């Protein structure tokens, strides 16, 4: 575990050094690198959110009714206690 930690910290240090150097000489290149990563993460989150919304809609649906996901968007989360 300790070795893994050292390796991870070394990689983090290298990434920071890379970012500093690239930021100095090629700030827009660094912005592409970070920005694309950010966009990928947000798009992945949007996809995962879709599944959460679908699951919530399925849980909120009564048997026999057609799936109306938009009502599940407004419906309380199944994990929230009902007051």
């Amino acid at each position, binding site marked *: 575990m300790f070795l893994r930690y050292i390796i991870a910290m070394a990689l983090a240090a290298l990434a920071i050094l890379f970012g500093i150097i690239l930021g100095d*000489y*090629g*700030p*827009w*290149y660094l*912005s*592409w690198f970070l*920005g*694309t990563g*950010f*966009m*990928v993460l*947000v*798009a*992945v989150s*949007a*996809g*995962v*959110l*879709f*599944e959460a*919304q679908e699951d919530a809609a399925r849980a909120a649906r009564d048997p026999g009714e057609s799936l109306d*996901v*938009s009502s*599940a*968007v407004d419906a309380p989360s199944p994990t929230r206690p009902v007051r």
Partner: protein
Amino acid sequence: MVNDLVVDLSRAQFAATALYHFLFVPLTLGLTVLLAVMETIYVTTGREIYKQMAQFWTRLLLINFALGVATGLTMEFQFGTNWSFYSSFVGDTFGAPLAIEGLMAFFLESTFIGLMVFGWDKMSKAQHLIVTYAVALGSNFSALWILVANSFMQHPQGAEFNPITMRMELQNFGALFFNPDAQSKFVHTVLAGYVTAAVFVCGISAWYMLKNRHLDLARRSFRIAAVFGMLGGAGVITLGDALGYVGAKVQPTKLAAMEALWTSEKAPMAFNAIAFPNQAEQKNYFTVQIPAMLSILVTHSLDGVVPAIDQLQVEAQERIRNGIPAVQAMERLSANPRDEAALAQFKAHGKDVGYGFLVLRYAPQGDLSKITDADIARAARDTIPNVAIVFWSFRIMVAFGLLMLAYLVLATLMTLSNQIERQRWFQWAAVLMVPVPFLACEFGWLVAEVGRQPWTVNEMLPTWLSASTHSVAYMVFSLSGFILLYTAFAIVEIYLMLLFIRKGPEEPGAGHAAAAGLPSAGRKLAAQ
């Protein structure tokens, strides 16, 4: 001296091949990243629908990738066949990023794309995901090196002109790679690719919703693409501003042409939203202006002044006068490379040697000592590109860009609230939006390349001097052949795309052969 018609035909051929090639490139740039997004969701959630999505969109990527490669390779050959003097002049510098693109980026992309298509059942999920990211990285790195090469043409730095070898010799690779024009152009172009792919995926997904087919795939694809595209749209506009800011410093003539800025004004300068430029009279007809906006957009300040064409022409005349002794010194050095006086004369005037080349076309029998003031004035006018084309191409590109941002913001809001399936009008709008990013990209390249005229290498090598000495008949044959061939390619691409889109995704569990789009006989063979 190269025939002007041969130069124009060479330009037309390169323009045609570049515009065709860039129909395919942005989609590859963005779709590879979208595939990585979809597969990331598959690996993290374990939901098979995302694997099916990744395999379906991969099929469309493959069609597009193949056409992109076919049209791109001929462009590299054209540098040698049709632009031999240019290749000789800049080969030492220009060749390096092109070679790196081929060896590093393209090999990365093309090697891993095979693994991506055929490796679904042969690798673990994590391994295949890494492969998909490698393909995305490879395609973006390809764009990086090509744009480093193009940016050298726009703002040559990192190389020095050697008057004895008549070449731009690479002095500083770092300066070449970190060229500010390359940086802003690369990020702007790849983000345009991300937006192109996002609008494409949204459009196809909306088509499926309209037809009530493959709804699981369509709704999820639309969600991912809309969010990704909205962020990309905001980014591409931001980087467009950065590119304009850089361009104002390194290519003031192109910027003046983009804004149809014929006469100097005091700050704050008004922005010509609409204008009808007249190149011969050097004025605009029927302008609609927004006060102060040009200073704000270009210089990010109300006090900022943007040089106008009248001022730039005066400066060009000075540079031409300064460049004439540089070309004369170069001619003496070609006869006697040890002529110290000629070398000293070149060093004193060498920074304007390109302007000396520019006026050389008006020199009687190539003798610059016979150049008159009228010739210098003509050459100075030549430094101004076709303002109408550059001005309107820029505005059309920006209009499309803003339209796409507005559309993608609305698409994101609709998909996040799960309204998209109910809004048939928006689904139709999504389908109709599909050609828009492709057109925006094409107009963007017209701004970049027509705006660079009359130079192939800005302020160093004029276009009229760069072409090969082919015959007119050869060029007509070559141009016609390329247009016919590429039109056939484009028709084949559209046909195959529509065929596979109508076919839709394969059912889950059909295996890697299905992902590659093989017919059922091929699938049976692959399964054995």
